């Protein structure tokens, strides 16, 4: 009997000792955390998480580990632990903390992949309803955007509808709702929504992101009005896009078509004159020569049509040849991403790479990518973590995220490039037809005994100005930044 007691005492001692040791470890890790020594706190929490038999303390250690990593800006590493808790659901008492941590790092990391997909897969509306209003709005917007990208428009609209109007994300959500209406071919409704975005964000707003969405809405309205053949309104919206803003080039590029459709060829050529200025040298603009050539064709100015055709041939025929070969090569998806990052290759022209890089999506991916790379490098050079189980685990997690990211972004980049290749081929086809048509027209004129070679043309009068608040300047072959967007040609039909 006495022996039994002795055994029982030893057994109890064996159980209690690690329990009390685990509590002490957690306590000391928490002390490190509270003293903001996250570099040491993180591996301490990791050890508690690994070794403590008490599941509650393990959970507590895991959330603090994730928070420590997030505070050190190791967002990719933090994601690994937050998502673990989040996946466990409300049964884990740190579920909401994990959700909040994930939403914060989604913003900080510009993450368009991991957190949105995680929330979509493990969406617990009751659980997430306990978050504050801003975070609920973030979840709704994030999932709305995800579904929009997946072309699940009804689901996207359902999420976006729940982004409250007083939320900072409201203009972005409304903008997406407008795009959804466009996809559903409801231009009237779309116009209403886009105009709502514009009126909700002042043109001089201090919020850069809101201003960006306002300008994007103006661009969307320009396109929308073009699509419904309201070219005057289209030009109006394009013209409202602020000079120097991120959509300025695009607005002038597209407005050329609007002016063309209004038969205002002088302004169409003026817009093209602006976008072909040296300031936009790195932009991809094959269609500019198509519009330019067509505008001159309408005016029967064959020599100038030829000049546009030749410009296209000189620039874009070799580019297209290399681009086609590039896209035919067998590559892993991430190779496309890396080539674009490096500004192209021998076959992939720099302006095409720039064109892909210019999108917000790419920039977000790139930011995410660079951050994960930075995390890997930092983990490898951290004396405290290097060569430890903790360091190895973090490296494995972040490396795995980086590989996944490169895969996803690679596929996205390839799709973007393929889209541009298709367009470039289409423009080549149009230039070929223009080339043929101008040759045919010249032959017809020669048959009719008409002169196709023009001498020096007389200078044509200045375009009209709306009122005395406007003034004319003559273009003297020198581009001034302040004049971009204000060019107008005076062009006279030579058909008769």
């Amino acid at each position, binding site marked *: 009997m006495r022996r039994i007691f002795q055994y029982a005492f030893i057994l109890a001692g064996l159980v209690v000792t690690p329990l009390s040791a685990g509590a002490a470890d957690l306590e000391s890790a928490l002390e490190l955390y509270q003293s903001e020594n996250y570099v040491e706190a993180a591996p301490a929490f990791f050890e508690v998480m690994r070794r403590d038999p008490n599941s509650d303390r393990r959970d507590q250690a895991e959330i603090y580990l994730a928070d420590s990593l997030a505070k050190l800006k190791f967002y990719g590493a933090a994601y690994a632990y937050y998502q673990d808790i989040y996946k466990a659901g409300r049964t884990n008492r740190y579920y909401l903390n994990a959700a909040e941590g994930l939403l914060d790092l989604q913003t900080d990391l510009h993450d368009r992949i991991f957190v949105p997909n995680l929330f979509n897969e493990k969406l617990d509306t009751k659980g997430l309803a306990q978050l504050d209003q801003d975070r609920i709005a973030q979840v709704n917007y994030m999932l709305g955007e995800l579904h929009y990208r997946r072309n699940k428009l009804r689901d996207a609209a359902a999420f976006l509808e729940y982004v409250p109007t007083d939320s900072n994300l409201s203009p972005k959500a409304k903008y997406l709702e407008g795009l959804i209406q466009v996809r559903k071919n409801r231009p009237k409704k779309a116009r209403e929504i886009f105009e709502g975005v514009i009126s909700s964000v002042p043109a001089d707003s201090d919020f850069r992101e809101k201003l960006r969405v306002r300008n994007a809405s103006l661009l969307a309205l320009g396109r929308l009005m073009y699509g419904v053949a309201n070219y005057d309104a289209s030009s109006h919206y394009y013209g409202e896009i602020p000079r120097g803003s*991120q959509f300025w080039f695009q607005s002038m590029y597209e407005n050329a078509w609007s002016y063309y459709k209004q038969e205002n060829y002088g302004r169409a050529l003026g817009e093209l004159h602006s976008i072909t200025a040296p300031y936009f040298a790195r932009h991809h603009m094959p269609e500019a020569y198509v519009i330019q050539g067509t505008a001159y064709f309408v005016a029967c100015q064959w020599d100038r049509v030829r000049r546009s055709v030749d410009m296209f041939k000189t620039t874009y025929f070799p580019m297209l040849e290399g681009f086609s070969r590039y896209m035919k090569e067998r590559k892993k998806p991430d190779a496309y991403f890396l080539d674009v990052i490096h500004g192209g290759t021998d076959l992939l022209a720099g302006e095409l790479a720039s064109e892909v890089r210019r999108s917000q999506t790419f920039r977000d991916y790139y930011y995410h990518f660079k951050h994960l790379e930075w995390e890997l490098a930092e983990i490898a050079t951290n004396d405290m973590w290097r060569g430890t189980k903790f360091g190895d685990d973090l490296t494995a997690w972040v490396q795995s995220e980086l590989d996944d990211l490169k895969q996803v972004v690679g596929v996205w980049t390839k799709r973007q490039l393929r889209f541009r290749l298709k367009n470039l081929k289409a423009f080549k086809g149009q230039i070929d037809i223009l080339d043929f*048509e101008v040759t045919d027209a010249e032959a017809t004129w020669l048959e009719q005994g008409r002169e196709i070679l023009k001498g020096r043309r007389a200078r044509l009068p200045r375009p009209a100005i709306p009122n005395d608040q406007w003034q004319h300047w003559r273009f003297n072959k020198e581009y001034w*930044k302040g004049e971009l967007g204000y060019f107008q040609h005076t062009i006279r039909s030579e058909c008769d």
Partner: protein
Amino acid sequence: MNRVILTSLMLLVVPQLAYGQVASSEDASPALETATLSEENSESASQARTKFAEDESIYVVQERAYSKKKKFELTPLFFTAVNPKFVGYVGLSLSAAYHLRENFSLELMTSLPYAVFPFYSPIVYDVFYYEDLTPERVDLKQMTHFTGLSAQFSALYGKFEFYGVLLDYDLYATAGFGITLTKTPCTAKIGSSNASTGAGEGECEVTDQERRQLGFGLKTPDELADYLKFSAQLGGGLRMFFTERLGLRFEVRNIVYADRANYQGAVTTDIRNIMLLFVGATVLL
């Protein structure tokens, strides 16, 4: 035939950038990158991605950088005489203009009281000291005040880059009329402590400094017609604005009037051309 060709072209040229792309946009969020603008303000056409011929009629139709129409322009100015023969001037003046149109305004300009500082040029001293000569009395008269009402017409405008800042300017011509007030030389009164030897019948008190320098002083002419002169004012200038309200003005203005001096019955006359250079900070109100 032409119409057929045009129609076929219209059909083939389907805008790739417009409506369809809104719906198929890859980017739900707008692009971030701003237009890549060079640091330089002007760029050579040789770097452009298009070609244009000499005979293409290309214009810039641009809203004015600043508008003056129906605005008041207030300008405090510093002035100095340009290449004065006998009498030089420095001083301060004030201009108030109302712009009826962008290129036309009415202006009232006046020198500020007690802020006109005439002085004799070195040649006057030279002829007094070394040549024992005296310029004609009328040439030694000094303008002490001017006021003018003039019309400004600005037909030319331009712009230039100044250390990376683009400045718009306009050139204007100005013409008007006004009045000037003058002073005439006078010899020291006999019996005055400062009476100059052999100066004849004295007319005015002369300060020590005046006596040491040229030996005569200055007084308001006895006759009103010799004191207050009607003048014509002609000039031209340049104004540029750094902001919508603040700018600089440079102006050259010639004040012309028929002057007359009567010294003990000996009358001398001259058409005075006082060329003044003005520089001032201007404010649009």
